[in-house]
Structure formats: C-alpha cells, structure tokens
C-alpha cells in the first residue's frame, strides 16, 4: 500500500506542493494572530512567525524526500551524476552513442522489414482465428483451390466459412484501360473478416444475392488510381467490360487476405458469375479459396475434424465438382491451416524469396550490434581506468561497491537509451532506402512502420546491449583492487588484467568485422557475377511490350499472324526503330513458358522427364532484336501455316543441339514434338542454331529450347521486342504504342519496359543484400578503427614513461613506431585467428545465396584480412606518432 500511496502522490506532485504551501500559510497566519493577541506589533509578529515556522523550501524538500523512497532518491542522484559525467566527456559520449545507434538502427531497420514481410499478421481483428481450407491430396501435397459448388456444399459448416476468387482483370476508368487484380467475394466475406469500410460500405449478403453491379476498392486503389477522390462513392468503373458502381473504400492497409495482398477491387461473387468476370462462370471450375474463422479457444485440429465430417457428407452426396468430373475425390481429405499471416500468393512467393536473405541480414546486423557493444564496453573500460583514481577516492570516502556498480550501470543505460533514440531515427531513414530499393517491384507490400512490435524489439535490443557492454566495466569494479592506485599515488588502474580485457574486446571486434567483411565480399562478388553473367543475349537497349487479347474484343481470335505481321510492318517503319520482332516469351522479361515432349527418331533421350523441352513461338526479327547470335543456319522466315500443320521449320539453341543431336550437324535434322496426352505430332526441321539464353533469371542456368514460327489462333498474347536506334528510346516507346493501337484499336498493351530493367529487378534481392552487407562491413571496420584507436592511445599514454626511457637510451623513432604498430597488429592478428573459422562457417550458411563464388573463397578472406590490417595500421598511426613525439625529459619528469 505504501507504494500505491507513493505513486498517487507523485502523480499529483504539483498539487501537493501547492497544498503544503497553503497549509503553511494558514499556520503562519494563525501564529501571527496568536502573537498579535499577545500584544506584538504587526511586523514583529510576522518576523516571529517566520522564525518559528522556518524555511518553506526546506520543508518542501523534506516532504519530497519522505515521499521518494530512499533507494529511488539515490538512483535519481546517480542518474544526474552519470548524466553530468557523460556531458563532461562529449567525445566519448558521441563515439559510444553513435556506434550503438548504428548497431541498434540497423537491427531495427532489418527487423522492421522482417516483421512486415515474414511476421506481420493480416490487418483484421483477431487474425489468429483465420483459417483456410486445403484439399489434402496425400502424397501430391495440398491444393488450395476449390469450386463454387464445393463451397456451397459446405453450407452449415461448424465454423463460419467464406470464399473469394482472385484473378486479373481489365479496368477502364475515364476511357483508359489498364490491368487490375480483383477478388470476387462471397456476401459474408467482409463480415467474417470483421472489417469496416473507411468510406461508404462493404459488400453485403444482399449485394451478393442480387448480383448487384457494385465494387469496393482498396485504399491504395482509391489513392493511386482515383486520386483520393472524395466523391468516390457512386463513381462508375468498368471491370472486364462490366460497369460497376463503387460503394465503398476498404480500410487502409487491407487488400485481401493473401500475402502479398495485391487485390485492388472487390466485387460480389454472384456479380462476377453473372457477368462472367474473374475468369469463368463455371460453378465447377477450381479457383475458389475458402477461408473461415475458428472460435477463439478452438484448436485447429478440432476445426479440421468438424469440417472433415461435413466434407465427407458432401463427397458422399456426390455434390462435388471434382467428383462430377470423375476424379477420385473420395480419397481427398480436407486440411485446415492457419493463415493469420495471409494465404501465400500463388505466383509471388515473396516470403520464400526473401526469407533466407533477410535472416542472413538479421544475423549480420546482430553481429554488427555485438561489435558495437564490444566497442562501447571498450570505451567504458578505458574510461573507468582513467577514472580509477576517482573511484578509489569514492571508495575511501565510504561509497559502497554496489553504489559504484549501480552508477556504472546507469551510465551504460543512459548510453544505450541515447543510442536507441538515435538508432530509431537512423532506422526510419534506412527503411525508406529499403522501400525505395523496391523489393520485387511491389509498391505498398513493404510498409515497415515503427509499430509496437518493432519498438518493443528495439527496446529489448537496446536494454540487452546496455547490459552486455555495461557488465564488463562493472565486473571490474566489483573484482579489482580499487585502493592500490590510491596508495601508489598513481591515478590509473594497475596494468595486467585490464589490458587483457580491452585487447580481448578489440580482438573480438576484429573477428566480427572479419566475418562481416568477408560476408560482404561474397555478396558483392555474387552480385557482380550475376550482373556480368553471360545471358546469351544482349540486353542493352531493347524494350518489350506485351500485346494482350484476353478480355478485349479480340479475345476470341487471339493474336492472328495478320495482326502481328501488320504491327511489325508499321513498327519497323517508325523512325528510330532498328529492329522488332514478336515472341511468346522474352528472356528474363517473361511471357508464356510452354513445353512439349521432343523425340528424335532412333536417337536421343527417350524417357518422359528428359524429353520435356521448353519452346517459344517467334517471328522473324526476334533473334536480331534480342541480340541472340546465330551459330549456324538462318532465321525463321515468316509465319507458320497453322497450329495443326504437321511439319514446320524451327530454330534450336545449342543446348538443344548438344542434347538431342550430339556429334551431328543439327542443321537439316528432324525431330517430333507433342503435347502430353495429345495426339497431334508435329515434324520439325532444324534450319538454324542460336546461342542458349537464360530465360528464367540471370541466376538459373539456360535450358535446351527450340523456337517455332508464330501461327494463327494459338497465342492469346505476344511480346513485342523493339531495338531502338541510339538515343531514340524515349520517343520510340509512345510511337510503338500508337502503331499497335492503329492496327488493333482497343487491344490491351503493357507499358514499354526495358528488358535490362527486368534483369535489374530480377537482381533486386542480390542488390539489396550486397549493398547492405557492404555497408555493415564498412561500419564494422570503422568500429574496429575507433576501438583500436582508443586502446592504443591509452596504452601509449600509459607507457609514456617507458617510451621516454627507451628513447633516452637511444631507441630510434622508427623502433618506437614499430613497438606501437606491433602491439595493435598483435591484437588484430588475434581477431583474425578467431574470425577466420567463424567466417568459413558463416560462408557455408549463406552458400545457397551465392553465385559463382565458393563460400570458402580464399579471395574474400584475403580482402577482409587485408582491409582489417590496413585499418589497424591507420588507426594506430596517430597514437604511434604521439609515442614517437614523446620528449624523454618531459616523460621522465612526469612521474
């Protein structure tokens, strides 16, 4: 109860001061009255009263001391004392706080990214209750896609369920057509998620039942595409050719339950069905994702078994689409999985892509923080040694060791608090850099915000580091002999253990720096190798435009060869266009990946796996535009006759030639290709061989491939590649877009994108990791420099006497220089010895992320060790020159 009264007192501290004053005023007045009654004059009475009552300030201080517990009182004193001490040593404080701030800031920034990418839950109430159904296919894994029929069959499930279908769509606002992502949702979708519109309302059950032509848009869509229009409600947008009226804007941050959440528009499920949006109106078609909410206390297993029973009934009743198709669903069980962090996006596995990189970076910043802590510990040790005299005097005057330790701990806490404060600011700056690096080119996916989780992390990290670096100096005070320096008349701690300790700390820093620098060289080399990797084509200038017929008036016919031919003719005629060509797929940029089974009569591999081979359809000019060189033979001429033609001329790449026609001239050879389960077999005659190009990414090796002519009625979309003349890049893009539109008005086309830019964004992950690793390495090196500088400077000043004697006895300045350098190199050498095995282990751990470098590379270790030694020499130069500059006479007189 005493503590409760204390707290309430301090909460009303100000009013208590006023109360005391008023109380004393009353007392004084009463005394004056009493004196007057005894016959004193007014002024005498006042003086007498003042004398009796004493000093009001004193009384207030007394009251404060009573309400403050004695321990708190002394803590407060220590706090102010430590603060004064820090302010008296600005250089020490600055270096300590800055190195911690870098460490804490880097940790906060990386954790912020990890949090938003790997840990963050969906922005809905009670996300931990959200579950999704999966079709359990036994050995073949799980499938998240159901049909609308199956969802309907699950009505009356023991937990509330809802569904959505994600798909791409075309969007027309104010006459401009673009692509969009839309989710067709069940009427109960928003109710189950428990979110509310920030404007208007969300889709209701009656919207769904009536198939109302309405849409809800996300906050990002509203801000980005509708310019945060305040009159958004009732605005008409056209999705897949259907006019919809906007009824509401979803809350900020919500864009569906996938991760990454990329939906822009939500429409009622039945609306999508009726107007055949979002893919298909086939009730049996797979593609429906089913999510549900389990009651808070219900374990996921029980939710599963409850639904499994119902699922069994559905299967038995034969209501299921899969069953209708004659598939054996009786064996397919149902699984219920926790999707509180979102349902993984089927085409964009950001988490898988970035998990290992982020964890490696987290380990890196952890090491960095450790090095920063070692640095601060070191500075504190040097400082407390310099203060040994002061500490000894305080012990002699009766201060307990506990009090001294408390004081040192408070000093550490203040440093770490300052470091954390500065670190959070640094982190915010760092995060904007990270976001600007645009992971996966997805605006809005990565929104590192200093939320409670991140701040809690920072607080824990800074307190932990305060303990780590504060404990050594404190231990020293507890253990060491504090009085001896006083007896000796010296002002410093005895040498010996202290030296061991601070050298050990610098060696630790050196070891950690070696780890980070060698890691950084591995990542930087990886990036350079990938950037310089031979892609098999020349991606210097050409850009690509995807011409799309789906969801347009050309959907039925697809890209016809007449259309493609005419577009090429007009594009090639444009001024500033060197070459142009169509392809179903463009290296690294993308397109459709198709493969067939290839057989060469009487030769080559025959088993099914080995004969599956990628192919692409191309037009003349494709290879020339992409800079894919011919090794022999010549290009395809014109377009193919039809998709069902039985023979055609094709071009193969040299990997294909090596695989299927080893030791033979491939030109003129014939092979057959067929789709699995397809009876159509086409005979292909090889007329040319091109170099093999990497189609997937710079990292993945090139595959055997063949290229067939573009035919009619086969391709829903084709990619146009254009190589502009030098300096004509800006003007050619729009002209090409107009040329395409002039051939086929209303056809959809993507913005012109440089193929080189796709290579760049394919390397975003590597760029981020290389950049950050290099930054961490540089910071670690500078920490070593600071640590070594401080220690060497201290050692030199400690050995002034000895150096003076040496010089008086005739030692040359170069031998003194060597003396100092030898000492600092010995420390770094110790660090190297400890760091090299660590670096090898760490290299192994990140091995899978490397490209073209071995994790045990001698090269990276040499760079790291060399830079450490260079830093060691640089950091000891100033102390060494100070040693050389010692005047023997002055030095000898000093002691």
């Amino acid at each position, binding site marked *: *109860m*005493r503590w409760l*009264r*204390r707290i309430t*007192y301090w909460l009303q501290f100000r009013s208590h001061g006023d*109360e*005391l004053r*008023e*109380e*004393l005023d*009353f*007392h004084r*007045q*009463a*005394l004056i*009255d009493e004196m007057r009654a005894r016959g004193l004059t007014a002024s005498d009475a006042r003086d007498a009263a003042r004398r*009796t*009552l*004493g*000093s009001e300030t*004193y*009384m207030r201080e*007394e*009251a404060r*001391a*009573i*309400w403050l517990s004695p321990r708190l009182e002394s803590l407060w004193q220590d706090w102010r004392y430590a603060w004064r001490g820090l302010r008296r040593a600005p250089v020490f404080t600055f270096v300590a706080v800055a190195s911690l701030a870098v460490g804490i800031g880097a940790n906060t920034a990386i954790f912020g990214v990890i949090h938003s990418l790997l840990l963050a839950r969906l922005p809905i109430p009670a996300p931990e209750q959200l579950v999704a159904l999966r079709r359990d296919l036994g050995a073949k894994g799980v499938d998240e896609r159901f049909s609308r029929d199956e969802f309907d069959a699950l009505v009356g499930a023991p937990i509330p369920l809802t569904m959505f279908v994600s798909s791409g769509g075309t969007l027309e606002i104010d006459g401009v057509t673009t692509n969009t992502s839309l989710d067709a949702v069940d009427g109960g979708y928003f109710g189950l998620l428990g979110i509310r519109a920030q404007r208007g309302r969300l889709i209701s059950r009656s919207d769904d039942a009536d198939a109302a032509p309405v849409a809800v848009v996300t906050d990002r869509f509203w801000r980005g595409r509708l310019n945060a229009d305040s009159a958004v409600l009732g605005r008409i947008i056209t999705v897949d050719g259907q006019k919809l009226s906007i009824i509401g804007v979803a809350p900020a941050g919500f864009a569906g339950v996938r991760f990454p959440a990329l939906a822009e528009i939500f429409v009622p499920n039945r609306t999508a069905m009726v107007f055949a949006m979002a893919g298909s109106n086939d009730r049996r078609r797979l593609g429906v994702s089913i999510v549900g909410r389990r009651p808070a206390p219900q374990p996921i297993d029980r939710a599963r078994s409850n639904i499994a029973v119902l699922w069994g009934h559905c299967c038995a009743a034969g209501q299921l689409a899969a069953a209708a198709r004659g598939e054996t669903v009786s064996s397919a069980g149902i699984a219920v999985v926790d999707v509180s962090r979102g349902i993984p996006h089927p085409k964009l596995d950001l988490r898988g892509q970035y998990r290992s990189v982020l964890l490696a970076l987290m380990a890196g910043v952890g090491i960095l923080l450790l090095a920063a802590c070692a640095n601060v510990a070191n500075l504190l040790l040097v400082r407390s040694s310099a203060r040994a005299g002061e500490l000894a005097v305080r012990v002699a005057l009766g201060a307990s060791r506990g009090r001294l330790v408390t004081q040192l701990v408070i000093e550490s806490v203040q440093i770490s608090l300052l470091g954390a404060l500065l670190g959070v600011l640094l982190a915010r700056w760092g995060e904007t850099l990270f976001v600007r690096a645009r992971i996966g080119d997805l605006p809005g996916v990565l929104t590192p915000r200093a939320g409670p989780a991140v701040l809690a992390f920072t607080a824990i990290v800074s307190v932990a580091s305060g303990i780590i670096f504060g404990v050594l100096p404190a231990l020293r005070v507890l253990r060491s002999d504090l009085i001896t320096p006083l007896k000796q008349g010296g002002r410093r701690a005895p040498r010996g253990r202290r030296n061991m300790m601070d050298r050990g700390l610098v060696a630790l820093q050196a070891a950690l720096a070696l780890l980070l620098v060698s890691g950084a060289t591995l990542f930087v080399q990886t990036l350079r190798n990938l950037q310089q990797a031979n892609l098999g084509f020349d991606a210097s200038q050409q850009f690509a435009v995807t011409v799309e017929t789906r969801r347009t008036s050309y959907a039925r016919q697809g890209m016809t060869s007449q259309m493609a031919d005419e577009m090429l003719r007009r594009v090639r005629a444009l001024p500033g266009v060197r070459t142009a060509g169509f392809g179903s797929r463009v290296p690294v940029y993308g397109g459709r990946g198709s493969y067939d089974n290839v057989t060469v009569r009487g030769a080559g591999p025959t088993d099914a796996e080995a004969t599956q081979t990628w192919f692409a359809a191309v037009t003349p000019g494709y290879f020339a535009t992409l800079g894919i060189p011919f090794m022999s033979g010549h290009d395809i001429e014109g377009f193919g006759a039809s998709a069902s033609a039985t023979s055609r001329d094709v071009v193969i790449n040299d990997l294909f030639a090596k695989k299927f026609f080893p030791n033979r001239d491939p030109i003129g050879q014939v092979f057959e290709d067929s789709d699995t389960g397809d009876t159509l077999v086409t005979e292909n005659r090889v007329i040319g061989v091109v170099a093999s190009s990497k189609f997937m990414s710079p990292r993945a090796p090139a595959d055997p491939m063949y290229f067939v002519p573009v035919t009619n009625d086969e391709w829903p979309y084709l990619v146009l590649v254009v190589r502009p003349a030098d300096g004509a890049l800006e003007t050619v893009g729009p002209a090409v877009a107009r040329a395409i539109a002039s051939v086929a008005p209303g056809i959809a086309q993507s913005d012109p994108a440089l193929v080189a830019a796709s290579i760049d964004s394919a390397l975003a992950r590597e760029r981020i990791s290389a950049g950050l690793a290099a930054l961490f390495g540089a910071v670690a090196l500078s920490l070593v420099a600071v640590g070594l500088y401080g220690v060497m400077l201290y050692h030199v000043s400690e050995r002034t006497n000895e150096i003076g004697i040496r010089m008086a006895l005739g030692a040359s300045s170069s031998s003194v220089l060597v003396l100092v350098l030898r000492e600092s190199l010995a420390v770094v050498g110790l660090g190297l010895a400890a760091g090299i095995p660590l670096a090898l282990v760490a290299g192994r751990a990140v091995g899978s992320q490397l490209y073209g470098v071995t994790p045990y590379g001698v090269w990276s270790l040499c760079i790291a060790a060399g830079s450490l030694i260079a830093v060691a020499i640089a950091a000891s130069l100033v102390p060494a020159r100070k040693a050389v500059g010692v005047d023997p006479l002055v030095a000898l007189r000093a002691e």
Partner: protein
Amino acid sequence: MARSNKNAELLPGTLDLLILRALRGGAMHGYGIAQRLRDVSKDVLQVGESSLYPALQRLLLDGYVRAEWGASENNRRARFYTLTAAGRKQLTAEQEEFERMVVAIQTVLRFA
C-alpha cells in the same frame, strides 16, 4: 536527511506517537496539533514546526492519518488530519511500547 526531529527535549521517535495521540480526540490542523501539544504538556514539549510537517507527511505515507481540507474555527481554509484505523492500531502499539520502555528506564534509574 534531517529526519530526526530537531527538538532536543523530545525523546527520539516520540513525535509521531504524540501526534497520533493528539489526533485521537478528532480531526485537527497542523497549527492545532502544535498548540495542543504545547498546552497539554504545559509548554514543556516545544514541537518545532519544521519537524511537525515532515512528521505529518511521514504519517500520511504510512497511512496512519488522512488529510482533508475544511474550515478552521475562524473560518479559514485549513488542512485537517484524522486518524485512520491503521493509525489507531499503531497508536495503541506505540503507546504500549513506549510505556514498557519508560517502566524499564525508570526501573534501571531506580535500582541500577
């Protein structure tokens, strides 16, 4: 830390007891307590105001007294202190303790 009371004539630690005793009759303000102690002891016990108020703060912290604002005899705003249940208990305990001590001291003075 000038917690001990300054009045040399008062036995150490007895000020709290005296205040609690004075409050047993009912609510009083600080000035009243000082008056009362002086009057009852026929001016033998001079309670310095400089130790009275810290003592009152201590009793507040310990929860032995409660303070409320009210009107004084001549209708001025004054802060009145009342004994709490805990204070009453404490008074009994301290009083017994004190009496035991006095008897012990007297015994020693008489027979030692």
